[in-house]
């Protein structure tokens, strides 16, 4: 069965420092992976998806099939990055399986 693992429940990073939120998945097929974010008092929203290979708000994520990982990275953290981050796997379509989430806190 498909599974998404986010090993860190909480992560605190100083402003200006690099950020890396870890995500590992298990799925026998070809995965579609996403990062969703929930800012305080806002709806859960898509941050980025691996297939588009884009950078949103300075965040990037590279799919590593060998390590079955899809870690989210940002070189310089900003205070507005504080939020709950969820890694998600679309498998099998049309179901989306979420990880348990990582609460990121940026320390001023």
């Amino acid at each position, binding site marked *: 069965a498909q599974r998404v693992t986010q090993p860190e429940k909480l992560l605190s990073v100083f402003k200006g420092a690099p950020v890396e939120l870890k995500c590992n998945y298990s799925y026998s097929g070809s995965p579609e992976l*996403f990062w969703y974010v929930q800012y305080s008092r806002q709806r859960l929203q898509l941050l980025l998806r691996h297939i588009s290979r884009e950078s949103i708000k300075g965040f990037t994520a590279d799919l590593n099939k060998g390590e079955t990982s899809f870690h989210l990275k940002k070189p310089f953290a900003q205070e507005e990055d504080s939020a709950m981050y969820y890694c998600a796997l*679309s498998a099998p379509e049309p179901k989306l*399986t979420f990880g348990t989430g990582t609460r990121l806190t940026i320390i001023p």
Partner: protein
Amino acid sequence: DAGITQSPRHKVTETGTPVTLRCHQTENHRYMYWYRQDPGHGLRLIHYSYGVKDTDKGEVSDGYSVSRSKTEDFLLTLESATSSQTSVYFCAISPTGTNEKLFFGSGTQLSVL
């Protein structure tokens, strides 16, 4: 924000009572989903729908039923609420399924006492 509304926003009920949560969309999207969000568990899929009267179970469907008689409405029913169903419930919609992004509602905070 996509046109998706959940009602009620908050509800307190007693164990053993039936509860229905409503998700309404104005986007004419084909796919609709119900998730529950719990600390330490993230979001877990309860049920989803891929069209009118077409629904399927998610990973935590026990104790829940759904109905979709119109494209715009997806109802989640707790037949006999239990304290373990205290949670925040999110509805999500998508035009093409989960290989495109999901749009989420604001959530319903349900407390079962």
